[in-house]
C-alpha cells in the first residue's frame, strides 16, 4: 500500500520538527485593533466595501450576540475566552498582480510549498497574470489566506458553466440578491453564540452558486490558513445548488504553530433544491497545541445543510485530527420529500486534545433517509465525544436512519464517549443505532510486525482499516492526505 510508504516519509519528516506545518508567514498586513464593539463591526464592513444592508445585518447579529451566553453543555473544558483580547480583522496589503512567480512574495510561495501545493496552482493562487490559461488541474482553489481570498482560480471555466465560486465578500457586492435571500437562512444569527459572533464579524469565506441542471465541472477546494498572531478566524461559507445540479466542495487546512489560543468560529450553510446534491468534505489539521495541550486552536464551528428540495442530498465527510478543542456538528435538515442526509466522520484526538463532535439529522418530510458513520480514535490523554441527534418529526412518514459509532482506544489514559439523542414523533419512522468500542490489541500489532511491518506502519494500517468506511467517501486526493494525517496524528501513541 503506497500510502504507508508515504506515511513513513511524513512521519520521518515530522520526527525532525514536531509540527512541520507550524510556520508563520511574514507578510505585510493591515490589522484592526484588538477588541470587539460596534465600531469593529463597522470597520470590517467598511473595509469590505459592503452595502448598507450588510452592515445592518451584522450589527443586528452583534446585538444578539451581546445578549447570548457561551454554551457550556459540550464535554470540553478550557480557560474562559476573552473576546476583547483578539483582533477581528487582518488583511494582507494588496499590490498590483505580479507578472510571474518571480515577482510573487517569496514568503507566500514558501508557505504554499510547505503545504505541498503544486507550482502551477501556486501561480494561480498568487494571482500571476495569464496563469489561468494553462488549465491543467480539475480543481479550483479559493485560497483564504489570512481571512482574505488572495486569489480565486479557474473562475473563467466555472463562469462558462454558470457556476459562481468566489469570496463571499465579492458575492455580497456582486450577487446581493442571492446573498440576501440565502445568508442566514440555514444558520440564523440567533442560532447559537458562535453563529451570532460569526455573523457579526465574519471577514471572508466562500460563496458557491450552481444553477439548475449544472453538474459543477470540477471539485471546489478551499485552503484555510490562519496566519496572523492573535487573529480570530471567522469564515462564512454559503453554497446554493439549484434543481438537478450538483457540486463537490473540499475544505482543508493546516495552521501555523503559535503560543496563544486561537478562536475559530466558522459558519457553513448549504442549500440543496429538488434533486440537487452537495458533497462537502473536510480534512482539518489545525495546530492541536503542544504535548501538554498549550497553544492549540479552538474550533467552534456551525455547519448545517438544508435539503429543501425533493430527493435532494447533502453529504458531509470529515477527517478531524487537529485543534486543541473541536466543537462541531455538521447537520442536515431534511425538509424535501425523499431527501437524503449523510455524515461520515473520523475524529482523532491525541495528547490533551478534546473533541465533542457529531451530527444532527432532522427529518421533517416523508421518506427521508439519513446515514451516520462516526469513527472516533482516542490516544494519549485525549478525550473524545460523539454527540448525535436524530429527530423524526410528525410528518416524517417512513423516514429511516442508520447510525454507527465506533470508538478505537489507543493506550489506557484516553476517553471515548458516545451520546446519542434519538427523538421519534412518527410511528412509521425507523431508527437504528450501533455502537462499538475497541482497542488496538497486542495480538493485532504482533501479527503485523511478525509480517515485517514496523510498529508505526502497523498502527497506521489498523487505524486506516478502522476508518475505511469513512475514508472511501473522500475525494481521491483528500483520501491520501487523510491517511497520512491519521498516522502522523497518532505518532508515538503506542509503546
Amino acid at each position, binding site marked *: 500500500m503506497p500510502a504507508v510508504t508515504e506515511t513513513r516519509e511524513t512521519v520521518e519528516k515530522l520526527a525532525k520538527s514536531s509540527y512541520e506545518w507550524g510556520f508563520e508567514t511574514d507578510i505585510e498586513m493591515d490589522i484592526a485593533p484588538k477588541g470587539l464593539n460596534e465600531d469593529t463591526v463597522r470597520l470590517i464592513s467598511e473595509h469590505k466595501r459592503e452595502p448598507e444592508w450588510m452592515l445592518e445585518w451584522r450589527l443586528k447579529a452583534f446585538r444578539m450576540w451581546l445578549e447570548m451566553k457561551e454554551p457550556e453543555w459540550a464535554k470540553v473544558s478550557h480557560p474562559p475566552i476573552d473576546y476583547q483580547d483578539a483582533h477581528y480583522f487582518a488583511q494582507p496589503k494588496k499590490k498590483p498582480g505580479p507578472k510571474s512567480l518571480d515577482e510573487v512574495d517569496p514568503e507566500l510561495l514558501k508557505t504554499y510549498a510547505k503545504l505541498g501545493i503544486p507550482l502551477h496552482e501556486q501561480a494561480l493562487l498568487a494571482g500571476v497574470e495569464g496563469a489561468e490559461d494553462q488549465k491543467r488541474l480539475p480543481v479550483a482553489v479559493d485560497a483564504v489566506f489570512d481571512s482574505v481570498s488572495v486569489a480565486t482560480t479557474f473562475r473563467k471555466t466555472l463562469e462558462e458553466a454558470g457556476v459562481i465560486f468566489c469570496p463571499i465578500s465579492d458575492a455580497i457586492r456582486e450577487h446581493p440578491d442571492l446573498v440576501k435571500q440565502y445568508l442566514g437562512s440555514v444558520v440564523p444569527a440567533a442560532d447559537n453564540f458562535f453563529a451570532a459572533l460569526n455573523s457579526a464579524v465574519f471577514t471572508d469565506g466562500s460563496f458557491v452558486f450552481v444553477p439548475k441542471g449544472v453538474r459543477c465541472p470540477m471539485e471546489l477546494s478551499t485552503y484555510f490558513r490562519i496566519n496572523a498572531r492573535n487573529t480570530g478566524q471567522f469564515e462564512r461559507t454559503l453554497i446554493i445548488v439549484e434543481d438537478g445540479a450538483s457540486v463537490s466542495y473540499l475544505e482543508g487546512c493546516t495552521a501555523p504553530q503559535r503560543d496563544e489560543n486561537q478562536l475559530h468560529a466558522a459558519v457553513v450553510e448549504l442549500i440543496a433544491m429538488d434533486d440537487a446534491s452537495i458533497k462537502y468534505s473536510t480534512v482539518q489539521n489545525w495546530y492541536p497545541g503542544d504535548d501538554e495541550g498549550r497553544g492549540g486552536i479552538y474550533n467552534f464551528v456551525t455547519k448545517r445543510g438544508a435539503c429543501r428540495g425533493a430527493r435532494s442530498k447533502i453529504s458531509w465527510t470529515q477527517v478531524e485530527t487537529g485543534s486543541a478543542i473541536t466543537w462541531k456538528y455538521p447537520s442536515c435538515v431534511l425538509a424535501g420529500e425523499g431527501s437524503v442526509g449523510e455524515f461520515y466522520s473520523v475524529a482523532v484526538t491525541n495528547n490533551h486534545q478534546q473533541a465533542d463532535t457529531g451530527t444532527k439529522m432532522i427529518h421533517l418530510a416523508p421518506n427521508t433517509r439519513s446515514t451516520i458513520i462516526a469513527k472516533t480514535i482516542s490516544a494519549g490523554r485525549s478525550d473524545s465525544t460523539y454527540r448525535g441527534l436524530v429527530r423524526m418529526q410528525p410528518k416524517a412518514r417512513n423516514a429511516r436512519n442508520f447510525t454507527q459509532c465506533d470508538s478505537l482506544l489507543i493506550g489506557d489514559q484516553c476517553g471515548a464517549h458516545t451520546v446519542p439523542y434519538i427523538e421519534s414523533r412518527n410511528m412509521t419512522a425507523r431508527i437504528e443505532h450501533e455502537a462499538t468500542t475497541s482497542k488496538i490489541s497486542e495480538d493485532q500489532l504482533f501479527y503485523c510486525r511478525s*509480517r515485517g511491518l514496523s510498529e508505526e506502519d502497523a498502527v497506521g494500517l489498523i487505524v486506516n482499516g478502522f476508518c475505511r468506511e469513512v475514508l472511501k467517501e473522500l475525494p481521491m486526493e483528500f483520501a491520501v492526505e487523510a491517511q497520512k494525517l491519521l498516522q502522523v496524528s497518532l505518532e508515538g501513541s503506542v509503546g
Partner: protein
Amino acid sequence: MNDFLKIQGLEARIDADGTPKEILKGIDLEIPKGEIHAIMGPNGSGKSTLSYVLSGRDDYEVTGGSATFKGQDLLALDPEERAALGVFLAFQSPVELPGVNNANFLRTAVNAVRRARGEDELDAVAFLKAVRAETKRLSMSDEMLKRAVNVGFSGGEKKRNEVLQMRLLQPSFAILDETDSGLDIDALRIVADGVNSLRGPDFSALVITHHQRLLDYIVPDRVHVMAKGKIIFSGGPEVAKTLEKQGYTQFLEAAA
C-alpha cells in the same frame, strides 16, 4: 557445524495475573539449513510459547539461554527485524484486522520485507501476478484478497491465508503452529503441498502439531517430543508413528 538455528538452554516465563509462570525450562534445539523438524507434545507443554518467543512476541520474558539465527542473536531483534531476516510464524489462531484489505496487507508486508532485505519493491502489477499464482496453487478464490484480513474467514481459509503469506514472504525459516488444526483432508493436502514445494537447501521449518496425520504429508527430518517446557526425546520420522499408536506416556515415563 550448524550456524543456522541454534537454541540453547532457552528459558521463558509469562506474567500470569501478577505471578510469573515458567513455561520454557531449558530448550535445546538445533535445526540445520534445509531441514524440517517437527515438535509434538501434549497441551500445555510450551510448544506455542516456543514459537512466540522465537518470533519475538514481548509478552514473554526470556530468563535464560540463547537463540541464534544465521549467526545473529535472535532474541535481541524486534519481530519485524526477525521477519526481514527470514523468520516466519504461521499462527495457530490468526487475528482479524477489520477494514484492512487483505491484498493491501499482503503487499505492504511483502514490500516491507523486501525493503529490509535490500530488494526492489513490487509494484501493483508485479504483486498481483505473484499473488494470483499463489492463490491458484492454494485453491483460494481471488475474492479472499478483497476481504478484510481474516475477517469472516473460516478456520480453513485462515490457515490457507497464513500459508499464502508464508509463500509470498519467502522465509528461510518457517514455524507452523498447528497449521493442520481445523483443516479437512483436501485442505491439509493443499497446505502441505504449499510447504513441501518450498523445501530445498535454503528452507527450514519447525512444524508444531498434535497429529501424525500432517506428518504423513510433510515428512520431517527429525521429530522432537516436548513436555513440561523441555524437549524430552528426539528421533527420526518414525517417532511420530510411535506416538500416534502409543501416546505420550512412555516418553513421559522415560524422561521422568
